[in-house]
């Protein structure tokens, strides 16, 4: 393959956007393969879940029993504290996405984080720890098996709170009988529907109830860690998809999750979703089959799955097809131009206006991976407004036509080249470059 084309595909289709002039960014298939073998090690920059839960709960406890103005002041302080955590998380995530090296790994983090969506919408304590969830449950587990990832995600306090499992109680458990409390099916349903087997793959309402029963007792401790409470756990064996699980403690749901993770329906569901997110809105069956087979033969090994994606010939076609999501568009814009949006509030405002605020997915299904869903008239208008604002502030030293060659040269059509070269100002040229099909797609 032509070296320039290989670099353009590596940087833009796999990575989060080429960084012209950097020696550290991946430009070859070999570099991509090397990149995904490096495990993520916590850098200690951001606080762990436990301390954030402690902070959040302390705020809530302080407000308890207060009334009137005092209560309002307390509440406002809590809201501000949560906002501050969120802004720091967003800055941190942006910094990682802008680093020239390792951006395919970052794309994979985005993919899996979206697959196992925890959204800060609606629940204050979740808002505090949704960023920590991505680090602790997603980033730290992309080098093992899908099964390990599923377990880590399901155990994490953020998921336990977000999908209401922490308050689910077995009706026949000690606590259930004493306090007249009952099952909450939310997490169990989404695990089957969104995280593993996929909707319509043949499981029943009885399966949902069985998994929900097995998950009772899973929850969060006072210190903000995962905790199994036997007193809330529904006693007795459960049958899920024809298999019986008899363990009387947390190993019951663990065994069930491990089995679900290995099922062929799960392999197919994951393979299809990955191909959709990485290739195009209409990925070739050969690519899906390839990923599905790898998932099954490797026992759900994530490095094997990611490697199969890199090695897949279907991924190396010369035309940018997949429409970038708003986050991909904004990050690739910053990577290409070397100009950052004002950190903190600037980034937050822009992503909000594009309806793609990290950590705030609209539902447990996460953001759409279908490019077309992001290409409505209003969305295109918003991208154009952002590009115009960005060019006003950042076009000073940029030669748009030259920059286009360096970042996406092999993707450019003759027409696009001609129009970029004929721009009436550097500012206009930059708007056109940011908005041209070859930059909007990858």
């Amino acid at each position, binding site marked *: 393959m032509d070296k320039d084309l290989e670099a353009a595909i590596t940087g833009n289709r796999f990575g989060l956007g080429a960084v012209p002039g950097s020696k550290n960014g991946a430009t070859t298939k070999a570099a991509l393969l090397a990149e995904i073998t490096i495990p993520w090690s916590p850098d200690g920059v951001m606080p762990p879940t436990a301390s954030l839960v402690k902070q959040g709960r302390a705020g809530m406890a302080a407000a308890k029993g207060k009334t009137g103005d005092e209560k309002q002041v307390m509440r406002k302080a809590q809201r501000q504290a949560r906002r501050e955590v969120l802004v720091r998380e967003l800055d941190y995530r942006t910094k990682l996405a802008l680093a020239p090296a390792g951006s395919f790994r970052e794309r994979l983090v985005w993919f899996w984080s979206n697959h196992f969506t925890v959204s800060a919408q609606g629940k204050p304590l979740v808002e505090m720890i949704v960023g920590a969830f991505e680090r602790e449950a997603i980033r730290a587990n992309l080098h093992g098996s899908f099964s390990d990832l599923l377990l880590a995600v399901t155990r994490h306090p953020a998921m336990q709170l977000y999908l209401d499992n922490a308050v689910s109680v077995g009706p026949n458990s000690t606590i259930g009988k004493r306090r007249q409390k009952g099952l*909450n099916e939310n997490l169990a349903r989404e695990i089957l529907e969104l995280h593993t087997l996929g909707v319509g793959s043949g499981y029943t309402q009885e399966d949902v109830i069985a998994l929900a029963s097995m998950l009772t007792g899973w929850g969060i401790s006072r210190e903000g860690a995962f905790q199994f409470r036997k007193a809330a756990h529904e006693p007795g064996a459960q049958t899920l998809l024809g298999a019986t699980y008899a363990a009387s403690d947390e190993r019951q749901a663990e065994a069930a999750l491990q089995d679900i993770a290995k099922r062929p329906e799960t392999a197919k569901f994951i393979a299809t979703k990955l191909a959709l997110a990485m290739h195009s809105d209409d990925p070739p069956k050969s690519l899906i089959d390839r990923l599905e087979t790898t998932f099954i033969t490797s026992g759900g090994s994530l490095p094997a799955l990611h490697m199969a994606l890199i090695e897949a010939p279907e991924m190396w076609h010369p035309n940018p097809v997949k429409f970038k999501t708003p986050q991909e568009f904004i990050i690739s814009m910053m990577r290409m131009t070397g100009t950052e949006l004002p950190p903190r509030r600037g980034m937050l405002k822009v992503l909000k206006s594009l309806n793609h605020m990290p950590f705030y997915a609209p*539902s447990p299904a996460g953001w759409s991976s279908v490019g077309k869903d992001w290409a409505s*008239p209003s969305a295109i*208008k918003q991208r154009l*407004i952002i590009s*115009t604002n960005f060019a006003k502030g950042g076009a000073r030293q940029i030669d748009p036509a030259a920059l286009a060659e360096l970042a996406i040269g092999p993707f450019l059509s003759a027409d696009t080249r001609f129009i970029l070269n004929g721009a009436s100002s550097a500012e*206009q040229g930059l708007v056109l470059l940011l908005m041209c099909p070859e930059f909007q797609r990858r």
Partner: protein
Amino acid sequence: MIISRRKLLASMAVLPGVMLYGTASAMENPENRFVFIILRGAMDGLTAVPPLGDSAYQSLRGALAVGKDQTLRLDADFGLHQNLSGLHQLYTDEQMIAFQAISSPYRERSHFDGQDVLENGGTKPLQMNDGWLSRALGSMPGANGLAVGQSVPLVLRGGGDVTSWVPSTPSDPEDETIERLLQLYQEDPVLQEALEKSIETDQMIGGAARGNVNNSAVAAKAIGSLMSAPEGPRIAVMEIGGWDTHNRQGVIKGRLPNKLSELDRAITALKKALGEVWQTSAVLVATEFGRTAKPNGSLGTDHGTGGAGFLLGGAVAGGRVVSNWPGLGASQLYQARDLKPTMSWHSVFKAVLSDHLGVSKAALDADIFPQSSTVMASKGLIM
């Protein structure tokens, strides 16, 4: 009337062919407008339209039961949550119908599938890749559709002349840049169409509406001002999310009551912005399914089946509750947990499309709601 209108209508469900009101007016009026509001996440219908006349209600709902003094009266059997005072005024003005125990054909409990069925117009999730309103629009020559927000929801996706809109900012790009961009998009039909439509809509609204599109009242106001323009869209869709109240949903204060207030404000803003066009408008408020009849273990409700909804507008023959009430007794619940659906949203959709927008029965039964000739359009919903 000795027999209540509600009961009369319920009994008429088994007597097809009986007609209470005329249905021909819409055919002659191409100016009729229709707004579809989707409440995503499944609104708890037993809080919005509490069945106060059902003796099982208070005990079944327990801490989540809405009291008589916390509701506005609809009729002897049903109340309306006190936060829906704007809707109640419309009810009093005979411009609002409340539906209770209604559902789409979907009988599982996934939001995403439930919304898919509500919007695709079939009986199964993913049955079709386009929406029933989009297909209806395709059968209405010259009519166009509008979605307010960053994306077009499934119900309006497919063929048809559809655009979406977000409010403007002070820094719109120069005309020359837009012209060149259109040149760049000549080989990219998806981006080309999106940009062209965005330009058209901006020209239509003339930069009047500014604000945050995530604010339902702002979105409703934008729809109202676009629709009331002479060449404005005849069909519009907006969405209000956040109804999935699994946890501490609240009765008078809290998440659910807040959502009800938000809905009420949006309807009020829509009516105001539509101005005189309100008289020829119908607004339908629907959600993917109801919630469990009994509260769950965490003072919330889980995904259920039968739910509630509203039809409002100057074109609506309102002032009544339309429901074939199944009851909340243990043996009356669906799968011993949910309110049993006794009416299909498809009957209401068909009624609005035929009686209000003049869509032919043939198109309704064959294309818009495939193989649905056995599902009758509800009679008399539209003036």
